[in-house]
């Protein structure tokens, strides 16, 4: 990043639903900054609060507490200043079933200040050949692409994509990524939520992982992955190599090794060092390590650790 202009700033953001005894706090104090031109991915399990958070940033709902500033404005109260500069692709929004693809796009086109031409937008998402087809006859993936076409139509400075590729086939997903990359190259800021960690790894400059309404990790993909240990797994009948106390003496082991019915699991901050020492011990003991598996830390592992509720308090958010 050579530009550091911040286009989205959240401070102590909270959002609750309902009042009194039925109140539920979906977003519990989020601080966040998104720089112009970057792709910021927001990850989390279902119900983590991603969409609730996004709706506040998009200006669809007000914050219960805390502040949110988008392009220097309050996106809810100063909607008219901000909204024309945003493109929003909701997780779930509909189309009138009886309009054609082109009629739908034309309708949206007429509501925008400086839109891209309808034909161009349909071409961007590969729907030109479906222009004359009723929306009710489009496949789920095609509707998702039409969603995307409308979101980018207004030449937004900030594009919000809430699970943009859910329901797309692998080829269409790749095409969507290409489109997002070309928008990033034009300087568009993108805020993305996704269930596909591969998508975040592929596109994100920075990401945050939400759990139970809070951001528990954030940073670049490398930052987030670096905070996770690598893992070695195997089964063996050798008693020394299944003894947690013995194994804890291996170099770089980051937690007490676990042994159980499914075998031994060792977490390490330095996979090569631990693995080498382990193999040397096995060699010396003449032990056989069955189902030996060494896996580096990955975004998926980091995500799963958080999703299972482990690590939520262990490592504070890096942002």
């Amino acid at each position: 990043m050579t530009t550091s202009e911040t286009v989205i700033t959240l401070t102590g953001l909270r959002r609750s639903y309902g009042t009194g005894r039925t109140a539920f706090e979906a977003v519990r104090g989020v601080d966040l900054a998104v720089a112009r031109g970057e792709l910021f991915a927001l990850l989390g399990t279902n119900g983590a609060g991603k969409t609730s958070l996004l709706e506040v940033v998009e200006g669809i709902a007000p914050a219960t507490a805390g502040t949110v500033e988008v392009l220097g404005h309050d996106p809810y109260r100063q909607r008219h200043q901000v909204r024309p500069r945003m493109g929003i692709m909701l997780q779930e929004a509909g189309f009138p079933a009886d309009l054609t693809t082109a009629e739908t796009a034309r309708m949206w086109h007429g509501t925008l200040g400086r839109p891209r031409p309808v034909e161009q937008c349909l071409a961007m998402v590969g729907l030109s050949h479906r222009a004359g087809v009723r929306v009710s006859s489009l496949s789920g993936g095609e509707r998702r692409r039409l969603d995307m076409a409308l979101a980018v139509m207004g030449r937004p400075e900030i594009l919000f994509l809430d699970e943009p590729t859910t329901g797309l086939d692998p080829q269409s997903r790749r095409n969507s990524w290409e489109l997002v990359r070309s928008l990033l190259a034009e300087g568009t800021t993108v805020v993305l939520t996704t269930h596909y960690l591969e998508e975040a790894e592929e596109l994100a400059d920075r990401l945050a992982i939400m759990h139970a309404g809070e951001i528990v990790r954030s940073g670049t993909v490398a930052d987030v992955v670096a905070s996770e240990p690598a893992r070695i797994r195997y089964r063996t009948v050798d008693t020394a190599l299944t003894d947690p106390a013995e194994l804890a003496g291996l170099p770089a082991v980051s937690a007490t090794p676990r042994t159980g019915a499914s075998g031994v699991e060792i977490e390490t901050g330095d996979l090569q060092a631990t693995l080498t020492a382990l193999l040397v011990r096995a060699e010396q003991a003449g032990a056989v390590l069955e189902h030996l598996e060494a896996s580096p830390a990955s975004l998926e592992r980091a995500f799963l650790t958080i999703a299972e509720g482990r690590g939520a308090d262990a490592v504070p958010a890096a942002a």
Partner: protein
Amino acid sequence: MTATPTTSPNAGTAAVRAGRTRRLLALARAEAILLLRNKTALFNAVLLAPLLVGFFVTVGGDFLGPDPAAMVASTLTMLLSIALLMVVYYNLTTSVVARREELVLKRLRTGESTAPEILLAYALPGFAITLAQLVLAGVAGALLAEAPPLARPHWLILAVLGGTAVFALLAVASSGLTRTAETAQLTTMPLIFVALLLSGFSLPLHLMPDVVGQVAAWTPLYPVVTLAQHGFGTVLPDGTVASGALRDVAQPIACLIVWGALGVAGVRRWMRWEPRR
């Protein structure tokens, strides 16, 4: 990233918005296309009001008046009233519910159109049909019988515009109480029934106990009928002529304002942009 805010094509700092009229027409046009493609809605919007008026005219009654010109004026008054109920009120309730359930309203809220614009755009096709029906019926009446007298056109215009505003607001409020487009028939029925019955042209109110007339005068369609009669200078069933004098239209205007306010309150209270989960 090498793009800088100053060279980026997206980096404008001022929000450019489409003109209000352009936004309105884009949405209204889409609504009009949808109406044309929905046979049931199209029948309700285009044919139902003329058919009902035809029925009332055939049945006759002293509402129609003594001469051909008065009959044309009374027919137009009935047409306006029924169009407000069927084309504006019922039709708009149905389409707002349908768009809400299709999650189209939710989408529109992510765009640049404001809430009043979206609702106004949705009311426009019904309003246009109502106007067209009135003009066509007026021309047909003038050719077949006699041109209706237009003593004070401003009261007629107020009846059309005020009536449309009131029934459009009531439609949006009703949409919030309606779960599906199909059940709109049920939720709109009470208001349609009461308004029609006490409008002044279905029940002979002047032959009924005073209290019925006093209640009727505060139902939403009554001021539309009264204002139209004052616009046409109609001879009323009790033999007097609708004068058009301000003191004679003050009550109907007040009634329209009351229903307009109730409509706004109902919209604020019940209108929803997303289906209930």
